[in-house]
C-alpha cells in the first residue's frame, strides 16, 4: 500500500528519530511512504490563535497538493494530524469558510476537493497492517521493555485517530503486549505534556511533563513511548533539565515506531535510537524461534 507522507517541520529537526523509524518500518513492512512534494507548515495551533482563515488556507495547500496522487495522508506529528484533519472536516461543515479558502487557494493556482483521508500512523499500523501481521513479522524480542504508553492530546481528541475510549485508550498497550513487551498501567496517558507552553510558560509546562515522567518511573516503566514529536521532546527535556540532574527523573523517551522497528528487526541506528537524550538500556535480542503462523496442531491448548 502507498501513502502520502506528511512529516511536518518537527520530523526534520527535533523529531528526527520519528522520521527515521517511520521510514524504516514502512519499508520493512512493504508499504511505500512518498513524502508530499513541497509541503508547507501545517500552521499548528499558533496560526489558529492569530488568523483563522489563513490557518485553514495554509493547511489546505497541503491537502490540495496531496490530492494529486489521492493516496491517504499519513501525519505522524499530533499537531499536524489535528490541523490537517480539522481543516478537511471543518471546511466540510462551514460553506462560508470553504468559499474563502477556495478563493485563497485559487490565488495560488490550486484547487482542493478535501477528499483525501488524513490518518495517524498508529491507526494505519493497527488497521492497514494489523497486530497479527506485525506479530508475524516480529524477529526480535521486546521482553525487556516495560513501556509507559503515552498518547497525549491531539490524536485522542477532538478527532480520535483510533476508534477507542478517548479517556482510556489501550491500542498501544495491546500492540506492545502482543509483541511481548510488558506495558505498565499508566493512568495519565492522555494528560497534556504542556505543548508549546514549554517556550511561553516554561514553569507550567515543566510541571506537567515532570508529572508524566515521575508517574512512569513510579510505575516501574523503563521507557515512555510517545506518538508525537512535541510530547517526546518535552518529556525528553526533563531528562536534561538542571533541576533534576542526578536524581531519578531520567527515563528514555521513545517513539512507538522505534519500538515496533526494534521488534521487526530494524537496528537501533535505523530507527534513530541514537537521537534520544537518555540511552535505552533494554535490548531487543533476536527471538530464539520465529513464531511462525499458528497451525491447528500448534495452537495453544490443542
Amino acid at each position, binding site marked *: 500500500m502507498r501513502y502520502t507522507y506528511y512529516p511536518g517541520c518537527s520530523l*526534520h529537526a527535533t523529531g528526527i528519530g520519528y522520521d527515521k523509524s517511520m521510514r524504516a518500518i514502512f519499508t520493512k513492512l512493504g508499504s511505500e511512504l512518498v513524502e508530499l512534494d513541497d509541503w508547507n507548515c501545517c500552521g499548528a495551533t499558533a496560526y489558529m490563535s492569530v488568523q483563522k482563515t489563513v490557518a485553514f488556507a*495554509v493547511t489546505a495547500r497541503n491537502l490540495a497538493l496531496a490530492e494529486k496522487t489521492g493516496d491517504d495522508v499519513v501525519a505522524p506529528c499530533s499537531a499536524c494530524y489535528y490541523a490537517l484533519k480539522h481543516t478537511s472536516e471543518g471546511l466540510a461543515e462551514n460553506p462560508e469558510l470553504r468559499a474563502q479558502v477556495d478563493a485563497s487557494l485559487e490565488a495560488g493556482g490550486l484547487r482542493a476537493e478535501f477528499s483525501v483521508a488524513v490518518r495517524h500512523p498508529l491507526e494505519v499500523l493497527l488497521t492497514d497492517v494489523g497486530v497479527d501481521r506485525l506479530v508475524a513479522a516480529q524477529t526480535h524480542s521486546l521482553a525487556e521493555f516495560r513501556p509507559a504508553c503515552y498518547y497525549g492530546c491531539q490524536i485522542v481528541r477532538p478527532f480520535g485517530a483510533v476508534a477507542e475510549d478517548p479517556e482510556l485508550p489501550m491500542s498501544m498497550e495491546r500492540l506492545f503486549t502482543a509483541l511481548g513487551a510488558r506495558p505498565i498501567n499508566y493512568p495519565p496517558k492522555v494528560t497534556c505534556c504542556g505543548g508549546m507552553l514549554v517556550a511561553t*510558560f516554561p*514553569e507550567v509546562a515543566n510541571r*506537567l511533563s515532570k508529572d508524566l515522567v515521575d508517574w512512569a518511573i513510579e510505575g516501574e516503566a523503563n521507557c515512555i513511548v510517545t506518538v508525537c514529536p512535541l510530547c517526546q521532546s518535552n518529556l525528553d527535556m526533563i531528562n*536534561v533539565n538542571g533541576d533534576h540532574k542526578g536524581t531519578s527523573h531520567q527515563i528514555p523517551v521513545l517513539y512507538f515506531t522505534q519500538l515496533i522497528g526494534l521488534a521487526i528487526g530494524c537496528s537501533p541506528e535505523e530507527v534513530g535510537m541514537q537521537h534520544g537524550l537518555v540511552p535505552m538500556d533494554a535490548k531487543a535480542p533476536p527471538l530464539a524461534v520465529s513464531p511462525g503462523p499458528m497451525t491447528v496442531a500448534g495452537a495453544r491448548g490443542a
Partner: protein
Amino acid sequence: MTTLTNPPAGHLAPGALPKTEAELRGAFLQEIERIPGGGRLNQCIQCGTCTATCPVSYAMDLTPRQVIGMFRAGAIGELLQSRTIWICASCYHCTLRCPAQIQITDLIYALKRIAIEEGIFPKRFPVHVMSETFTENVKKYGRNFEVGLLLRYFLRTRPLGLFRQRRAGWALLRHGRIRLRPDKIDNIEQLRKIIAKAETFDLPQEKVPKEKVTTTVGYESIGR
C-alpha cells in the same frame, strides 16, 4: 426560564453594557458563529468539569468555568485582560468532557484572536509574540524553523530565557536534533499568494457591524 423584569438602571446594571463592552461582545458573538457548535455556549450549566479537567487551571487567574460565567455577566473586557486565554495549552480535554458539548478550546481561541486584534496583551507573558513569530516564520520559509523561532522569540521577549535553555539546546544539538539552517519550500511564492488572499478575509471580519451588537446581558441574551 425566568425573564428579567424591571432591570435595575445604571451603567453597570444587568441589561446595559458600556459601549466598548458591547463592541467586544459583538466581536465575540460573531467569532463563535463561525465555530461549529459555538452556539452551544448558552447550554453551560456551570458545573466546573472544564476547570477540574484543565491541566493548567492551577496557573490561571480565571478558570474556564469562570470565563463562561464572565462572558454571561458581560465582562468580556476583563476576560481579555486575564492570563487564562494565553495559558490554555489547547489540549482539548475540557471540550471532550463538557457535558453540554461546548467547544471551550475553540472559544478560547476566539477570545485570543479578539485580544490580539484589540491589542490587549498580558503583561510579562508575551504569548502572542510566539504566535506572531511563528506566522512570520511560515511566511518567510513556508516551514517552521525551530531554532530561528525560539531564538527570535526569546530575543524579543526575555533574552535571559535563552540562557536558561542552554542545557537543553546543547543536549539536542549533541544528539543531532537541531537544524541550523531553515528549510525553505520551493514554491514559497504560491504559499505567500494564498496567505495574502486569505488575510483579506480575516481582516474585515474583525470589524464588527453595529447591527450585530447586542446590548443586553443575562440568561435571556446568551448566544444571541
